[in-house]
């Protein structure tokens, strides 16, 4: 597959290296001459110096035949515009933009970017998982359905400890599908399963119902 990567920073460089390793044809577009030279030295002649938002540069790298276009610079506005130029001027079928400011996630979707990846959110979530008191972790987004898979932990002092699943009122579009007790083996929850302190629960929910689900499972 021919893939164009805009931005040769850490993300762009490692992305290009990985994609090359998988046998794809890659071109990296980078503004900074020193960085361009570094990438060419490391990965072969795959990096071109230029502005990834400029039509002239994108014509030069043959954007018209690219199947995928990935913009991973440190500036959200540059990633957005580069993807829009690729999409509207060159009809690239799939555009992916990195987002640094999580606030822009909804905006990018609204403005027609196929996939928007929020690097800040991903880092935040990974760190949150390591914070012992944090009770809800995002595991996976099911993008086109507006659903997400999350992990919750039942704190030892939760009011729901000792209660049966059927007595817990879950928010709409939320389902529990795996319970991992502290000591025993993981099991599928049934109506009569009793929640215990420090149970880990894997559930599917919507971003809007997240807080309600957390409240329902902790009883406060």
């Amino acid at each position, binding site marked *: 597959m021919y893939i164009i990567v805009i931005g040769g920073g850490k993300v762009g460089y490692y992305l290009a290296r990985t994609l090359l390793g998988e046998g794809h044809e890659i071109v990296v577009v980078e503004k900074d001459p020193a960085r361009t030279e570094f990438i060419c030295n490391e990965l072969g002649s795959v990096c071109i110096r230029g502005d990834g*938002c*400029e*039509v*002239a540069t994108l014509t030069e790298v043959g954007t018209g035949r690219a199947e995928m276009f990935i913009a991973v610079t440190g*500036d*959200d*506005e*540059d990633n*957005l*515009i580069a993807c*829009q*130029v690729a999409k*509207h*001027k060159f009809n690239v079928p799939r555009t992916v933009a990195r987002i640094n400011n999580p*606030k*822009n996630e909804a*905006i990018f979707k*609204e*403005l027609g970017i196929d996939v928007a990846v929020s690097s800040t959110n991903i880092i935040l979530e990974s760190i949150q998982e390591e914070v012992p008191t944090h009770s809800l972790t995002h595991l996976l987004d099911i993008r086109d359905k507006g659903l997400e898979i999350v992990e919750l932990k039942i704190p030892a002092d939760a009011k729901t400890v000792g209660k049966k699943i059927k007595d817990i009122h879950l928010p709409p579009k939320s389902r529990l599908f795996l319970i991992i007790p502290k000591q025993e083996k993981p099991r599928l929850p049934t109506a009569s399963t009793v929640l215990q302190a420090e149970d880990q629960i894997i559930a599917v929910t919507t971003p809007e119902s997240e807080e309600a689900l957390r409240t329902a499972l902790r009883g406060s």
Partner: protein
Amino acid sequence: MKIVIMGCGRVGARLAGLLDIEGHSVTIMDTDAYSFRRLSPEFGGTALVGDGMDEESLRKAGIGEADAFFSLTQGDNRNVMAAQIARNIFRVPRVLCRVYDPLRRELFNSLGIEAFSPTTIFAQMLKEKLEAEPEEESK
């Protein structure tokens, strides 16, 4: 009209002044409060520190009720991103935007944004000035 301007550079500040004198309700935004020194002392509109690419700041500036939005920062991409937020998310009826790069301008016009390239306009004007007879500038 209620007008929001993003970027209080020379052009932004001057435009804000012109529109204010004509009685429009003008809010001008800039990320740096120091830029507001460019506004004339008579400016009667609102100067707001904030980023025009940020939904919340735009809301504070009253974008929801705005009849027109101008994006006039130094960055083409910033201008176009803000313009698209104003147009596609807040449905501002008129969105005008400065884009230095003439090639990009065409594309954004096709996305429904009134984009103007000072590069093209000024180059054309200089050429015409040269071709015309020299004249006495009044100012």
